[in-house]
């Protein structure tokens, strides 16, 4: 069954405390090549049947209203992935 993937990231101008903690932990494990980490969210919405334009529009709407908070986050990707 096809899935619609929605990716949400904290806005660039907003400090991401979780990403900051992760970038601090990486060198302790020997991963020294990464100067910054930002943590986002990936949602997978399963669709029973074909993904129509209307369903995709619904996913975009849901991404803006529930899946993200536009004050602190950006929806950076909404795409269909075949199973």
């Amino acid at each position, binding site marked *: 069954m096809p899935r619609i993937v929605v990716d949400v990231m904290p806005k660039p101008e907003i400090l991401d405390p979780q990403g900051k903690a992760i970038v601090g932990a990486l060198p302790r494990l020997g991963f020294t090549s990464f100067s910054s980490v930002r943590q986002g969210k990936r949602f997978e919405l399963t669709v029973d049947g074909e993904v129509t334009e209307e369903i995709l529009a619904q996913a975009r709407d849901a991404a803006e209203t*529930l899946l993200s908070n536009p004050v602190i986050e950006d929806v950076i990707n909404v795409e269909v992935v075949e199973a």
Partner: protein
Amino acid sequence: MTELPLIGEAVAVAAEPRLAGARIGVVTFPGTLDDRDAARAVRLAGATAVELWHGDAELGDVDAVIIPGGFSYGDYLRAGAIARFAPLMSKIIDAANSDAKLPVLGICNGFQILTESHLLPGSMIKNDHLKFLCRDQVLRVENTNTAWTLDYQAGQEITIPLKNQDGQYIADEKTLDALEAEGRVVFRYVGFNPNGSRRDIAGISNAAGNVVGLMPHPEHAVEPGFGPESLDGIGGSDTDGLGFFTSVLNKIVGGDK
């Protein structure tokens, strides 16, 4: 109420019938923690507490609403994000925005729900130090014209408990400037910013002043023997939070200054 008080003198404003007639709703979501304490604070102030369930389709007969703290829906997705779409919330949003200007107070998770509802601007993200923090916190009351702060003095410093992990208040600079210019920063952290909140903001109001949200917990500082004073003596009194509840009562019964 037979549960009052556990120790000490009841600090309630005398149980005047006109106060007891005021009905203040307290909303419970799945994962709410502080609804009992909020209801108790309402009763200590002399009003009648009305239990409200998030799934209710109607708000019923209430004069004000408190959205208490806790972890509605386990803070899944974002704190307050799922609770915001509960059936009762749409009624509360309509009533808060109506001409009647229903007084609404959001405490901690309730504040997060109010920002997710767009009743208040900005948002909360994780504390800048990433830890859950529980302490007694000094706040300065910066606006005494809201429905929930009438009984305080402008500039008064109060001490009430703070306990959260996602308490860092953020908004863009334009929004912050507007909040300051319109006097809508209602509470500011004093002496120590516990979570990195922009401009030390602990609580804000909407333009009309009927909707107020803050991260610290006034409902945990309403009773002698159970408030900040009995812990570490950093100042204030055990009952610094009671003014929230007496303020809205005065507003409801028409006794505001």
